[in-house]
């Protein structure tokens, strides 16, 4: 037996299925916050390694989320290029100086590596949590965090609509390909133009679906701000509490170490 999450099927035995929905959202926020605070490469490396280990513990079928890793790889490349070509981080030795004034030093390389680790920590943590969350987790997570139902409904509808939109996108692209439009060949401008022309049918389809969805929502009796009850009930268990305490302590230690120095980036005091 498995649970269908937003992106994959997760084995029922996965510890992630047992967590309280609001704790999943809190974990997502805290891990991202910790990664954002940390600037030292070694602690970030430990954080990334720990998150990777969590994929194993959460029993996530990694093969099914490979497409996310491809996306992550693209971001890593972008971060690397931006620091290599567009930064002025002083170091002991400068390897290359570019005509536009930026240069690459050994500190640039270390800093770029650190920033990549930071992005990896954020992206891996987000992938880990989103891959293990159901639409119900998002709705109830936000409700237990005392956010308005309208927000959780819009978020859950957005996830549902995303699937339909992707399906439409593929069909429209296929139809255009069959009529001679190439999305992989030609100049960058030509390809951009071809992708832009996808927008017309996609917009029309989206508007039509939006109108129909609004009828459906109205006929299901949804009103914003009205009193409502909930079908499911979640209780905070002992392991939820333990994880919450652990995350709280971790965040506090991170803040303390950042403030005292050990989690700051070594060798570039000029930035602050």
């Amino acid at each position, binding site marked *: 037996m498995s649970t269908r999450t937003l992106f994959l099927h997760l084995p029922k035995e996965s510890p992630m299925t047992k967590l309280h929905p609001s704790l999943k959202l809190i974990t997502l926020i805290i891990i991202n916050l910790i990664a954002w605070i940390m600037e030292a490469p070694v602690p970030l490396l430990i954080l990334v390694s720990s998150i990777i280990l969590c994929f194993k513990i959460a029993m996530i079928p990694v093969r099914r989320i490979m497409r996310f890793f491809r996306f992550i790889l693209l971001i890593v490349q972008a971060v690397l290029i931006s620091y290599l070509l567009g930064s002025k981080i002083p170091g002991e030795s400068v390897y290359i100086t570019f005509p536009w004034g930026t240069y690459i030093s050994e500190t640039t390389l270390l800093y770029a590596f650190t920033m990549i680790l930071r992005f990896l920590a954020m992206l891996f943590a987000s992938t880990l949590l989103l891959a293990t969350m159901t639409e119900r987790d998002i709705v109830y997570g936000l409700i237990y965090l005392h956010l308005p139902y309208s927000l959780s409904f819009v978020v859950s509808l957005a996830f549902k609509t995303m699937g339909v939109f992707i399906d439409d996108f593929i069909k429209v692209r296929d139809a255009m390909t069959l009529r001679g439009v190439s999305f992989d060949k030609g100049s960058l401008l030509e390809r951009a133009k071809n992708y832009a022309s996808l927008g017309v049918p996609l917009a029309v389809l989206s508007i039509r679906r939006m109108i129909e969805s609004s009828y459906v929502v109205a006929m299901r009796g949804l009103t914003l701000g*009205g009193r409502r009850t909930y079908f499911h009930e979640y209780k905070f268990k002992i392991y939820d509490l333990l994880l919450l305490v652990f995350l709280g302590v971790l965040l506090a230690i991170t803040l303390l170490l950042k403030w005292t120095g050990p989690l700051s980036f070594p060798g570039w005091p000029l930035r602050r």
Partner: protein
Amino acid sequence: MYDIVIENLRWKYEAGEEALKGVSLKVRKGEFLGIVGPNGSGKTTLCLCMTGLIPQMVKGRWEGRVIVDGMDVTKTKLRDIVRSVGIVFQDPEVQLLKMTVEDELAFPLENFAVPREEMRKRVEWALKQTRMEEYRMKHPFELSGGQKQRVAIASVLALTPRIIILDEPTSDLDPIGKREVFDTLHRLKGNHTIIIAEHETEELMKYADRLILLKDGKIIHEDSPSRFFYKIDVDSGVHIPQLIMLSRLLGNVRNLTAIRELVKYDSVKHVRETSPKRVESEEAVKVSGLKFIYPDGTIAIDGVNLSIRKGEFTALIGPNGSGKTTLCKCIVGLLKPTEGNVKVDGRIGMVFQNPDHQLFCKTVYEECAFGLRRMGLAEEEIKEAVADILKVVGLSGLENVEPFFLTKDKRQRLAIAATLATQPEIIIVDEPTTGQDVRQTRDIMDLLRRLNEKGKTILIVTHDMKVVAKYAGRTIVMKDGRIIADGETRDIFSRFDVLREASILPPQITIFGRKIIPQTTVLTVEEMYELVKVRA
């Protein structure tokens, strides 16, 4: 006494023509009312008026009165109307808002602040009514079309409304899905007032207490199903059930046993075949050992070998998920086979099920010219070619119209025109008649037949067995990614066991023909008529 009373209702959309022109109608408590009529006749508009969505969520000009369960829909809050009226829409994808069946059913109850224990009971009850108990934890994407519509019905039922309105709920479904929906409605009959707008008249006839024919925004006929189809015009844009059509051709012989008597086994030698036969010619498409596995591991095509001859008119049939569309995508090159290969001799074009996925230019002219420009033709040649093709599909004069302002059947014809413009020798059409009324279906299929007669190879994917029987010389039956039968359509339709295995119901006239002349396979009403007319 009456659940719905409509008095002289007129409705004009803000940016459009008058859709309803003085409709008056009374629906009794517990009645099963069928609304039939050609596309654009006002069926959907009437359904929306009965729910209050028109005029409360749609802008336009309203005249007349609609009273639903004692409430005036123009004066009562939509939320209060919803307690008495539920509606199921045509598109199963759009109306499922949550990610599990159970949550979908609970959603309207949560909105009305129903206590949790009561909610559980009602969800259970609605699941039972629609026989969806075992799917409660399923994601909508994991359900078939018929199951999705059952969930939509269950979701409406959970609020226990007196009235259930269904707007063409089976248009997008395969034969199993259609049957599932009608079986569910059959179970609900009597406990609820059911109003259904539908093209499937053969199914409607079995269940409805009364039928009304809507045309150009007016009710032009209403009667009990047993009389209704004998009285409406053959060209009313409504499909007349095949057995009634036969009966009408025979001078209104209403007793089917009388028709049986007209046919003596020994006098029947051959059916005068009106449907096309297979052709023997060179190969247009050759598929060898084709296997296609989707990235998630789903085996969509599992070892298909197939050869399609030039000039053939072939129908590809089978239940949803049997691999029909995937096979077509492999043939046109949109998908790369996991194993095996596809050889195509000649230019190939494909028309998609939903024309809105295919149209992206600013005008009808540009839509047809697009492919020709890609081929590098001169503007004069393009002008000529577009004029020709628009004439073929009956869209001449609409060159400067924006495609998305055309009606669905015209958009469908434009999608065909845009594909045909590039002169493909092989044309694949996915579900050409979905959501089309009888006249539009005939227009599109006649167009494909004319192209076939001009030498084009046609492959259609369809759930409409009447269309297959009438137009396709060859039929391929798929199930679970494999071809389970392939042959002349008459031969395939004689193999009821194979059709049953693929959950396909042959046309009504074929089933009837088998009962009265077991050794012969009749495909169309015309063939049956030829058999019995002399004695009649």
